[in-house]
């Protein structure tokens, strides 16, 4: 089984009001050194067999992203490295 990740982001010139709202909330957390926040979407696709990156790009171009307003990147993730690194643990 192979897993492919598609990251979809609004193009830089497209206004991201959600990102702006998050950025504007950060001072409430005491964070004052962030100049911009932009929000995208991560999509994970699992193949039954070998990953077919060309097919994923086609899926991304036709459905997962709207090329008029969004860019996407595609990468395959290895099974073992797939576990997210624990965050926020200082030890």
């Amino acid at each position, binding site marked *: 089984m192979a897993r492919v990740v598609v990251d979809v982001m609004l193009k830089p010139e497209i*206004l991201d*009001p959600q990102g702006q709202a998050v950025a504007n909330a950060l001072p409430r957390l005491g964070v004052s050194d962030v100049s911009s926040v932009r929000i995208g979407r991560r999509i994970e696709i699992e193949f039954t067999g070998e990953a077919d990156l060309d097919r994923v790009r086609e899926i991304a171009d036709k*459905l*997962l992203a*709207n090329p008029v307003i969004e860019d996407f990147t595609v990468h395959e993730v290895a099974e073992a490295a797939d576990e997210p690194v624990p965050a926020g643990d200082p030890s």
Partner: protein
Amino acid sequence: MSARVGVVTFPGSLDDGDAARAVRVAGGEAVRLWHGDSDLHGVDAVVLPGGFSYGDYLRTGAIARFAPVMESIIDGARGGLPVLGICNGFQILCEAHLLPGALTRNSHLHFRNRDQWLRVGTSGTAWTNSFETDQEILVPIKSGEGRYVADQATLDELAANGRIVATYVRGNPNGSERDIAGVTNEAGNVVGLMPHPEHAIEALTGPSLDGLGFFTSILKHLAGATA
């Protein structure tokens, strides 16, 4: 024989009933079309109504665009079939690349639900020939993702070629580029409109009767086409 105007129902469509009613009030025959049925049942024109097709999952209109009925509508529209997309229907038409640009989240992030003044940008489409160019009309708008965006070259082209069907006047409700409320394709048979003309056809429930003009326009267009 009155013209047959199809109204598509997707899972999550809300305004298909009102759109069909608007067709009837204008004097046409409304034909209900189902998203899963690729047969257009011989209709002369199609309305894609407002709502939240497929729950607005992924992007508004992104999944509806691949419904079986849409394959036939996309083929038909390329051959001249008149298609009006209202609100979610406009979003679907942009996702299907029958219209340029895209509809994005309102710049202020709030859902806007109010009666909205529009200026009709062109009477030269299948859906706006009952209006005068520059006529101001009042119809409801109700959307959270109604902000029209396109690159500057596309916006310039739309403006230069009279393809901006309607603009917001007396206040832009969503931050839409160049106050755009609706656009048409090059041939003028496909129109997308963010506000809801089907809710402004009767004095009892609408702020005006101005919306009826879009539906009388298509009947006039079809009558002219067959004459």
